[in-house]
């Protein structure tokens, strides 16, 4: 398993970008439909995060787990990751992105969490793994990596 973390960042975080993501999701879906938005998230999963995608295709989940730890910690989310023998479970109890957008606009787009679900699916596409995202409440979710049957 590699120790690589291609997309690490440092310095401050600008949470208002999540508000612009929310605006973008509403804009794209209102004009082009949810399929167009899903296609953009698919490019994020496969092209923007190519290094993680390639690792998953090669059977290595390590970078994705480190990526989760790095960014959920940077954004001060309440979360934990359980790495088990059969599955890896990321439990997000308080998603900073969702709650920041709620603070800015009241109610985030009903498709706000598609950025997670669809990007996860694209990351795992063509790999031995599936990544399932279950929204468990407002600003909380469970993301599970497991080998495909």
């Amino acid at each position, binding site marked *: 398993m590699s120790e690589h973390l291609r997309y690490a960042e440092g310095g*401050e975080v*600008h949470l208002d970008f999540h508000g612009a*993501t929310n*605006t973008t999701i509403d804009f794209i879906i209102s004009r082009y439909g949810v399929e167009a938005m899903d296609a*953009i998230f698919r490019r*994020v999963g496969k092209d923007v995060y*190519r290094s993680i995608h390639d690792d998953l295709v090669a059977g290595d989940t390590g970078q994705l787990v480190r990526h989760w730890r790095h*960014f959920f910690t940077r954004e001060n989310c309440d979360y934990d990751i359980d790495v088990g023998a059969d599955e890896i479970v990321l439990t997000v109890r308080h998603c900073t992105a969702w709650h920041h957008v709620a603070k800015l606009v009241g109610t985030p787009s009903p498709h706000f969490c598609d950025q997670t679900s669809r990007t996860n699916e694209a990351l795992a596409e063509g790999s031995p793994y599936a990544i399932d995202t279950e929204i468990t409440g407002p600003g909380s979710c469970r993301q599970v990596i497991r080998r495909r049957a």
Partner: protein
Amino acid sequence: MIPSDHFTRFYNEVFKFLESQGEDQLQAYFLAISKNQEKHILELIETKGLEGMEEYWTHIKIEENCDMDIDRNEDRLELRMNVCPSLSKVMDNDAEPMGRYCDHCAGWIGPIFDKTGYHLVYDVIDRKKPQCVMRVFKDAAKAKEAEKDVKLLMGWPGHKV
């Protein structure tokens, strides 16, 4: 969650899609983002003018990790971006950068200055280099004069150059 750190790379993918749909679609998106940004900057400009702009971009300089010089006098505000973190991330990217990525900046802020009666002169210099100079004037004639010195002047929705 797409981390806020990676919004710019997501933005880049959105721009590529919209560019494929037509220039009017890209311009409409800039206006949607501009409207979104009003909640962060409009009141500052309306109540404090150039000082309010300086306050906003001083905050942005910190949160977005910009290498940027801010200079204000009674006539104008100047932002000199030495290293733009936004374009830098888009260029250091496993996906292809959108060739006109820099256009979004004037694209969202220009309409806000139009709305508040200020005059923007946005010099992108070179779309492949993460640096630019933005000047905002109170006086239209001074802005027009400043346009003579720019290398690559940006327009925005409702203000073609």
